């Protein structure tokens, strides 16, 4: 055996070995077609080795030709080998992918069902089994409607029919029933595989959304709670994203602005096309501040102007990055309106206060000026902003501490209004009023001082008071005059009536008195020597008749009188004659003190006689009690009556003075009243007649009397120039 045959024999053995391996592992290592191909290849290869062995060993040389022929096929065999190996690789890849998909199918969390066009389960994954509690065998060929909640069967059938026609149904929700009857909410897509216009199967890929449903329900309830809570906080609440869109808004914002979620905040809330100036959310996003507050104005869904205060705070993720902004939108429209109203009101009040003439100063409890009106500021020549913050006593008192009589401090202490009038060194008078200012709890928080320069007012008041006093005096004087006139009128009326009566009576009495006097005179002459007693009584009758005549004369003189017949003459001479005539009538000395330089006077001699007679009669009456009183005393009283005349330019005075009992003040005041008398038998007409005569002569009469010291009556008559 040569070397070649030996190599061939070894080749045969190797081929047999290979053939044995292939047969032994048929279908185990390679796929069967590949294994068959390998067997054929090994067989051919072994046949060549056998033919070579037979040729070169000399056993059967003709095998050489057959070997050559088969050898020609060997490149093709190798080509098949390589092809088979590539196919094997392809199959392995497919199997590997199939395994991956199968793993994906079996281990997918989704519920995957493959249904026949008749609605039977053809295939299902592990998730379906685990979720519904069925085994794979139980599910296979089970009608899908048995897995559905009865309420969903109708809807599923409609969906299923549409899918069989080629439609793809997405995100459909159904409720499945587990083997033990529990409900499982699923959501997913349904599609079909169509081959040649015929549906082959229907794919159902569902997600178990039971937990999501529960979570959604819980979320819905939480959202409702949140809506309820945020809807009752009285303010809007919104979450704003980085692109300034509203991610969420509470009910109040929706009520005010309509549906806002998903829209940009500056468009919905403020009707702007760009981010609002001063936007708090922008500040939070860009600067990272923890809180940004601003005020914005916009219009609500009805077009009403609405003011909002927006408080923006960041919403951060776990890394601290600002992901969104929480905006608290507080409606402040009403507040703004009130602020505007308040501002307007304050403006008006300021105008009013500035228009006042009074200094109005509002201070705190330390007398630091909080506000002052224009008049107050002008009084110190400063602007309001310069006055505010300073102490009032430094500006107006020029001191370093509060004034000791500060009425504002007193008002703050007492809690009541205080008022004081104060004079300043420049002589002006100020009326200062202090009012306490309290807070809602009654605690004093400051004081108000209102000061008014009342110098002019005081002057006017004083003038008015003076005028009033004078007026009152005039009124009193006038009233007194009117009362006197009234009394005089009453008196005159009374006297007129009385005069009429007394004139008649006196006239009628005068004749009988004349007869009595004549008869008494006759009897005196006849019986004058018959006895002292008869003579005394006759004299008494004569005296009484004369007294009655005097009374009748007085009455007639005062009530009826007569117009004076005045002639210029020497008054002293007339008085001398009268006194001479009367000297024998009175038993007291008549002291004559007649002025020799008396000017001429125009007078009625008869009426002057009447005056002198009446005054002397009054003097006699005043002296009589003195004479009687002196009888019991050791010191003799020397009664006297002094008649004097004197002259002053344009006037002549007649004075009758006595040292009798005098008069008290009341008697002296009423002495000239007609019918006023202090004597039992007096008519009360003597001095009244004296005054009438004096006044008829254009003169006056006055009386001076000292009780116990005498009386002096002065009659003034106009002298002839």
């Amino acid at each position, binding site marked *: 055996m040569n070397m070649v045959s030996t190599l061939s024999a070894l*080749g045969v053995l190797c081929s047999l070995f290979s053939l044995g391996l292939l047969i032994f592992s048929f279908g185990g290592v*390679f796929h069967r077609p590949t294994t068959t191909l390998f067997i054929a290849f090994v067989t051919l290869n072994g046949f060549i080795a056998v033919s070579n062995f037979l040729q070169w060993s000399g056993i059967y040389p003709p095998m050489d030709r057959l070997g050559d022929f088969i050898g020609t096929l060997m490149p093709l065999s190798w080509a098949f080998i390589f092809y088979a*190996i590539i196919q094997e690789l392809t199959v392995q890849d497919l199997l590997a992918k199939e395994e991956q998909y199968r793993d994906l199918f079996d281990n997918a969390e989704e519920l995957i069902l493959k249904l026949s066009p008749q609605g039977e389960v053809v295939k299902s994954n592990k998730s379906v089994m685990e979720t519904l509690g069925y085994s794979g065998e139980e599910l296979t060929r089970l009608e899908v409607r048995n897995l559905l909640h009865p309420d969903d069967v109708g809807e599923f059938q409609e969906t299923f029919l549409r899918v069989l026609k080629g439609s793809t149904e997405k995100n459909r929700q159904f409720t499945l029933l587990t083997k033990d009857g529990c409900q499982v909410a699923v959501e997913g897509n349904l599609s079909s595989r169509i081959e040649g216009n015929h549906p082959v199967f229907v794919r159902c890929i569902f997600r178990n959304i039971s937990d999501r449903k529960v979570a959604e329900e819980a979320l819905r309830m939480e959202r409702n709670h949140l809506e309820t809570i945020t809807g009752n906080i009285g303010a809007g609440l919104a979450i704003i994203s980085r692109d300034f869109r509203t991610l969420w808004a509470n009910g109040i914002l929706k009520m005010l602005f309509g549906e806002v979620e998903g829209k940009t905040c500056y468009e919905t809330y403020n009707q702007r096309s760009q981010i609002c100036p001063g936007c708090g959310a922008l500040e939070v996003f860009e600067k990272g501040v923890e809180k940004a507050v601003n005020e914005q104005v916009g219009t609500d869904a009805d077009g009403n102007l609405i003011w909002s205060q927006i408080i923006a705070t960041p919403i951060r993720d776990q890394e601290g990055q600002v992901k969104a902004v929480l905006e608290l939108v507080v409606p402040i429209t009403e507040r703004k309106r009130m602020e505007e109203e308040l501002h307007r009101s304050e403006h008006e009040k300021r105008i009013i206060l500035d228009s006042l003439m009074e200094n109005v100063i509002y201070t705190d409890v330390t007398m630091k000026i909080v506000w002052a009106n224009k008049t107050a500021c002008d009084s110190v020549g400063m602007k309001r902003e310069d006055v505010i913050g300073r102490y009032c006593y430094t500006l107006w008192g020029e001191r370093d501490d509060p004034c000791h009589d500060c009425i504002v401090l007193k008002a703050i202490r007492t809690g009541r209004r205080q008022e004081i009038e104060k004079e300043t060194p420049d002589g002006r008078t100020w009326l200062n009023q202090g009012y306490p200012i309290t807070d809602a709890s009654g605690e004093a928080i400051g004081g108000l001082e209102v000061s008014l320069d009342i110098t002019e007012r005081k002057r006017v008041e004083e003038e008015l008071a003076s005028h009033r006093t004078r007026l009152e005096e005039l009124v009193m004087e006038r009233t007194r005059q009117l009362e006197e006139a009234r009394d005089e009128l009453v008196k005159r009326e009374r006297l007129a009536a009385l005069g009429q009566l007394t004139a008649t009576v006196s006239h009628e009495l005068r004749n009988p008195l004349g007869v009595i006097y004549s008869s008494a005179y006759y009897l005196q002459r006849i019986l004058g020597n018959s006895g002292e007693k008869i003579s005394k009584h006759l004299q008494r009758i004569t005296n009484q008749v004369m007294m009655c005549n005097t009374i009748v004369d007085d009455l007639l003189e005062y009530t009826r009188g007569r117009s004076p017949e005045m002639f210029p003459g020497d008054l002293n001479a007339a008085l001398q004659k009268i006194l001479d005539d009367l000297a024998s009538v009175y038993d007291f000395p008549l002291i004559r003190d007649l002025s020799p330089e008396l000017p001429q006077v125009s007078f009625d001699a008869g009426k002057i006689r009447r005056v002198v007679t009446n005054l002397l009669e009054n003097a006699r009456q005043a002296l009589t009690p003195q004479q009687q009183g002196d009888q019991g005393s050791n010191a003799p009283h020397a009664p006297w009556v002094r008649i004097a005349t004197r002259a002053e330019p344009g006037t002549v005075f007649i004075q009758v003075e006595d040292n009798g009992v005098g008069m008290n003040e009341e008697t002296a005041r009423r002495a000239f009243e007609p019918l006023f008398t202090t004597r039992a038998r007096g008519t009360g007409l003597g001095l009244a007649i004296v005054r009438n005569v004096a006044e008829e002569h254009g003169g006056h009469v006055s009386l001076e009397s000292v009780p116990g010291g005498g009386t002096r009556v002065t009659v003034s008559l106009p002298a002839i120039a």
Partner: protein
Amino acid sequence: MQESEIITLVLGLAVAALLIPNYSQMKRFPGSRILLVAFLMMLSAWAATVLEGFFWSELFNIVEHFSYLLSTASFAAWLFFMVRRRGRAER
């Protein structure tokens, strides 16, 4: 030298030419190098068959059959490798 030997060599080279672009894919197959050696030994046997007709006929004849043996042995070794690998994988 026979015409069939030349045809075989040409076909073998053609197969080699086809193998080259697919070799990267082939390399994924386990023991592909052993298989490639088996093919190359077979190709060298075909070449030696042609060459022995021109010179050194004795030498190339021995090379030819030695290459046949190596090719057959390599293929057997490759099969053995695959079977044993499968067995390990199953274990």
